[in-house]
């Protein structure tokens, strides 16, 4: 059952605005430990749709969309606030505080895994554990560090994103693929990734691919799990290992899943590893 927040919870006007702004949805066991799923660049909360049923019996599942993605309130987008991960982290902490959550398990994919690192460092008292799916603290190679991309490659990527968004809205509107097998899932997922404002996508891409959060890994004080996909061109094995080696109390699991979106392509495996980690 999907509802906006528990009846009887009183949140101030500002709190309500935050939950609406980020299209926060809560499912699962209201008495369970809260587990917050945070999507990465290019996605929305629907990228977790195949995994969340695994957690609903025992956990209180919280889903959200970053401002500018999914069904978030795009009018809340502020170029100055969201010019770095810190603006997004502000939102996440605001959601947690509004819902008065404790012992939160933060599950972040890709760039949102680093948001998890920052959130946990800012307010360690709110979190129990951190799960990083396909994380990378820096994409551009540097002295003694292999991020996987040269500056030129990232520039190319940003150009490629800009030119692919050139005709994005019209292309998207014309591809309604009604599918007989699981039409309801398709439509929800499809609608949520429907239109991303090209200017927002462009900025989010820059925030994602030009950030450097290597220094923040060492400050993490909660137990962490790094889930690494085989053959992930965005966040390679070396990068995953680097993250694990620099977060003090962390585990590293190399999954059989391939590609950068294991939450979509191999949801059962990812869920299994998270459950094992949560014990």
């Amino acid at each position, binding site marked *: 059952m999907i509802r906006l927040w528990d009846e009887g919870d009183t949140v101030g006007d500002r709190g309500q605005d935050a939950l609406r702004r980020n299209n926060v949805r809560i499912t699962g066991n209201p008495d369970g430990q809260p587990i917050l799923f945070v999507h990465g*660049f*290019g*996605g929305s909360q*629907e*990228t977790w749709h195949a995994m969340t049923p695994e957690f609903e019996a025992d956990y209180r599942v919280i889903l959200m969309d970053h401002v500018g993605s999914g069904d978030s309130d795009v009018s809340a987008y502020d*170029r*100055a*606030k969201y*010019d*770095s*991960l*810190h*603006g997004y982290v502000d939102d996440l902490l605001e959601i947690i505080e509004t819902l008065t959550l404790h012992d939160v398990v933060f599950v972040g994919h*890709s760039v949102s895994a680093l948001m998890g690192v920052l959130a946990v460092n800012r307010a360690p008292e709110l979190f129990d554990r951190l799960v990083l799916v396909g994380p990378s603290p820096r*994409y551009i190679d540097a002295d003694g560090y292999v991020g*996987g*991309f*040269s500056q030129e*490659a*990232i*520039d*190319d*990527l*940003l*150009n*490629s*994103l*800009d*030119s*692919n968004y*050139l*005709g994005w809205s019209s*292309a998207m509107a*014309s*591809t309604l*693929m009604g*599918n007989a*097998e*699981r039409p309801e899932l*398709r439509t929800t*997922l*499809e609608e*949520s*990734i429907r239109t991303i404002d090209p200017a927002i996508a462009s*900025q989010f891409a820059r*925030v994602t*691919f*030009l*950030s*450097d959060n290597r*220094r923040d890994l060492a400050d993490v004080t909660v137990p962490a799990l790094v889930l690494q996909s085989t*053959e992930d*061109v*965005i966040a390679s094995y070396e990068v995953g290992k680097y993250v694990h080696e620099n977060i003090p109390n962390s585990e590293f699991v190399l999954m059989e899943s*391939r*590609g*950068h*979106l294991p939450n*979509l*392509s191999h949801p059962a495996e990812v869920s299994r590893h998270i459950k094992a980690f949560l014990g």
Partner: protein
Amino acid sequence: MTGDAAVGTDDLFENAPCGLLVTTTDDVVIRTNQTFLDWTGFSAGDVVGRDFHYLLDPGSQAFYATRYQAELWARGAIREVAFTLIRADGTPMPILVNAEMPSQADPASAVVRVAIFDSTVRHDYEREMLTAKRLAETSESSLRVLQEASTRFLAASTDVELSAELASIARDAFAASEVAVLLADEHGTFRVDTGAKNEQMIRQLVEAWPIDPLSITADAVISIESLDQAYAESPRVGDLLRKLRTEALTAVPIAEGDRILGAIVCFFGRPRALDQQVLELQRALARQASLVLSRVRLQNQLERLARYDQLTGLANRTLVTERISQALKVSRSRENSIAIIFIDLDGFKLINDRLGHRVGDMVLQTVSDRMRAAVRDTDIVGRFGGDEFVILCEDADEDAALAIAHRLAAAVRAPIPTLAADFRVTASVGVALHASDSRRFETSDSLVRRADAAMYESKRSGSDHMTVSAS
């Protein structure tokens, strides 16, 4: 006749006017057509069994792994995505991709069908268009920023208002998470009026920074693009910026000629490449701000001149009258009584005539200074003209008013050392009271007239007398 072979399905697939592939849902190539191999120079063995996206350039691979994959899983279809493929000989080939991933009951047999179109010409055109578009947008947005600044600055009438507008414009223009504006006041002290949070940040920065403020010139610009650069500058600065969640920083002086009037400091939450365009725009904004600051200060100076007496520095008639009107408005609601004290100097005309205007001026200045010192902080001493003074005491009952009036009289009465003993100055004092619950309709004119009349009574009784007008 053309053979069936030319339209057989095999031929249609192998020699289609586009590249065709089938991959697993994990992107492993299962089969390709001949056209694809011809275009790319690969053999079937090179490609089959490999991940398709490894054939793309790194930028394309990153886009593939994020947006493309998410979209494919969401919709089951991709249309017209632009990638760059790297041929067997290493040369880049721009392509457009269509793909379909029909969902199937058995995931193990799920496939993705991919069609690839050579888009070399389109690609070049698009890139040209994209570059031109970006260039146009950049100069257009710079222009818009300056135009908007110009409009918003028009309304600014104080330093603080200017700071606020400037900070807001800079924040939007540069997507800076915090913008602090420093301005030097008339004493040369720099103030930050753009919020307590960034004032704190500036304070800490100034403490940690090993820069000699005197060495900053009007065309200097400070620019830090990353924490790495900050740490290279000094570990202290690096640590501080990290604490402030700032990873890049710019500081541009606001100058008037060679004089530094202030600075615009932008804080960014991630590393930023601060190119010429950004720095130029910051400089342009600073120049605009400098002009506006001159205007604002000149305006304020004129207003001051119009409200203060040049010789004595006391409030002039205009200002005192304004203040009395305000006090009357406030008196009822705050239950304050008001007192107006009208003072006329006895013996002043004689001094002016006999000893000259220079001495007369000195006497006026001395007496004014003493009267100012004799009143409370909240009272206003004004010069109404010649040797007449009007003092406004807000929130003063009869006792308080009389006490002040006596102090004023004593201040005027006290001998002036440089003045010959024969020449004495005393005050004829008139006091008018206005109780907060007074039912009488009073204006500042009527109040002053009452005090004036009372003063006249004092004058008629001789010098150095005081009269109170019943309210």
